[in-house]
């Protein structure tokens, strides 16, 4: 590995780490003022918990040799990875670890303003172990069955986004609706700040996924930026045409939807494909956000509408728009019909596995005495910042 590749991968890893504080503010701005800190902490604690789980056993389970379904325990505590001889693999451990942080953090958008914080910490450990690690193994480990199937997932459409989105739906369903949701987000600048940081960090996420500083990653960078912009613009314009105003929270969400959708495709499509993917993400995620309230599921911050719909669209779009000259794989447009089947299998497998296992984990946590998914009504009314963290986000009474 050249020093340039190392330099870029260190940078990319740092960028992906920053996405999680970015997500903290993106989500934090969307909730009521009395739950901002709790929402931020959902993401921040993912940095603390997942980093530790990852080096202890997560990496080994995900990328240890194992079999087609799961890794093994050969690298527990990163055992057997020599700092000098295996530095390239350690760099891979780092970069992949950042993905293991943000994926469960994404889930939390569905459960804000009512989920019990201690239970969440336990959930983090179990979900990384039993859901994230296996799916990462399937898709990205050399032994993984979806890897062998040739499923296209450049930077984590299935592993990260669809996976998180289906777990989000399950969690929102099990924890139930909020008692008293606000009409509007309480801090839209935080939403935009978060989206800006996510957009910035996503360059590491996608353009780092080729694990080199080369043509593939340059292209991944370009298509990432293009799709984000196209989706943000699409979202903004739809809301402008429909209501005569352009929602800032909407445009920020649109950008994230575009970034989600380009994620699996970033190594396979060109800039025109990226425009199409971004445009599609704008339309589809917007529609999904509009429809969600009708379903009656309180996926509070639309995790499924953005990461699920965006991720599925991206996985299919990777199949549709893949260009052989870019990523070595022909897409539907270039006549490769078969790729669509593989993509559908990858999506469905992720939906099913993550849905079922996330359900089991949460059900068990709900039944364990002392845990349980939901805070008390009084705690919810008072706000989770005080009830779970003993803090107020903002002290505005000058006198306090």
């Amino acid at each position, binding site marked *: 590995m050249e020093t340039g590749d190392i330099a870029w991968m260190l940078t990319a890893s740092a960028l992906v780490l920053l996405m999680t504080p970015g997500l903290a503010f993106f989500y934090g701005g969307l909730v009521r003022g009395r739950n901002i800190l709790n929402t931020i902490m959902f993401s921040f604690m993912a940095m603390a918990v997942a980093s530790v789980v990852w080096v202890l056993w997560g990496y080994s389970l995900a990328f240890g040799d194992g079999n087609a379904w799961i890794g093994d325990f050969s690298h527990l505590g990163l055992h057997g990875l020599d700092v000098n001889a295996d530095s390239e693999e350690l760099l891979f451990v780092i970069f992949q670890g950042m993905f293991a942080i943000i994926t469960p953090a994404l889930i939390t958008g569905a459960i804000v303003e009512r989920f019990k914080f201690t239970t969440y910490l336990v959930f983090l450990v179990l979900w990384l172990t039993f859901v994230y690690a296996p799916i990462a193994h399937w898709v990205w480990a050399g032994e993984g069955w979806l890897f062998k199937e040739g499923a296209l997932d450049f930077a984590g459409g299935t592993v990260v986004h669809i996976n998180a989105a289906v777990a989000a739906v399950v969690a929102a369903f099990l924890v139930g609706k909020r008692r008293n949701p606000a*009409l509007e987000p309480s801090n839209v600048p935080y939403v935009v700040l978060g989206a800006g940081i996510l957009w910035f960090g996503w360059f590491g996420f996608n353009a780092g996924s080729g694990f080199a500083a080369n043509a593939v990653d340059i292209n991944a960078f370009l298509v990432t930026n293009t799709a984000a912009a196209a989706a943000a613009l699409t979202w903004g314009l739809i*809301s402008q045409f429909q209501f005569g105003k352009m929602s800032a*929270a*909407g445009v920020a969400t649109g950008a994230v939807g575009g970034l989600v959708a380009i994620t699996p495709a970033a190594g396979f499509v060109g800039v025109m494909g990226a425009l199409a993917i971004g445009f599609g993400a704008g339309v589809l995620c917007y529609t999904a*956000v509009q429809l969600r309230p009708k379903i009656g599921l309180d996926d509070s911050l639309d995790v499924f509408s953005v990461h699920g719909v965006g991720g599925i669209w991206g996985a299919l779009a990777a199949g549709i728009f893949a260009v052989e000259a870019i990523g070595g794989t022909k897409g539907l447009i270039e006549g490769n019909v078969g790729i669509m089947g593989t993509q559908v299998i990858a999506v469905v497998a992720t939906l099913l596995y993550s849905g079922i296992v996330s359900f089991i984990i949460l059900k068990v946590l709900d039944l364990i005495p002392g845990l349980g998914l939901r805070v008390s009504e009084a705690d919810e009314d008072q706000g989770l910042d005080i009830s779970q963290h003993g803090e107020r986000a903002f002290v505005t009474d000058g006198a306090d």
Partner: protein
Amino acid sequence: MISIEAIVRPERVSQVTAALVEAGCPGFYYYNITGQGRQHGVEVFVGRGGAMATRSTVPKTLIRTVINEDQKDAIVAAIVASAKGPGEGDIGDGKIFVSQIEDAVRVRTGDHGAAAI
């Protein structure tokens, strides 16, 4: 002494306070409130550009001043004149409430009554 409380549009506050000073008002204070009256609220996005809803309440500012009874008419007139937006007067321009104050005390000196305001 009487208390005058004027609920006005936030963007009119500097005009109203200037008018108060001009009318000889000895002091006042103001703070943000969220109000609902005949004004039919405001359209806001919910669901990030995906839907709009009417928030029935609107931001207002309440300006209060405590004055001597004899200043009452002048002060009320000053507020009414300055609180209106450009044009005829619109729904939501505001409301004034007048009530009795029994006593006032200046902390610095301990003065009571009219001398304190």
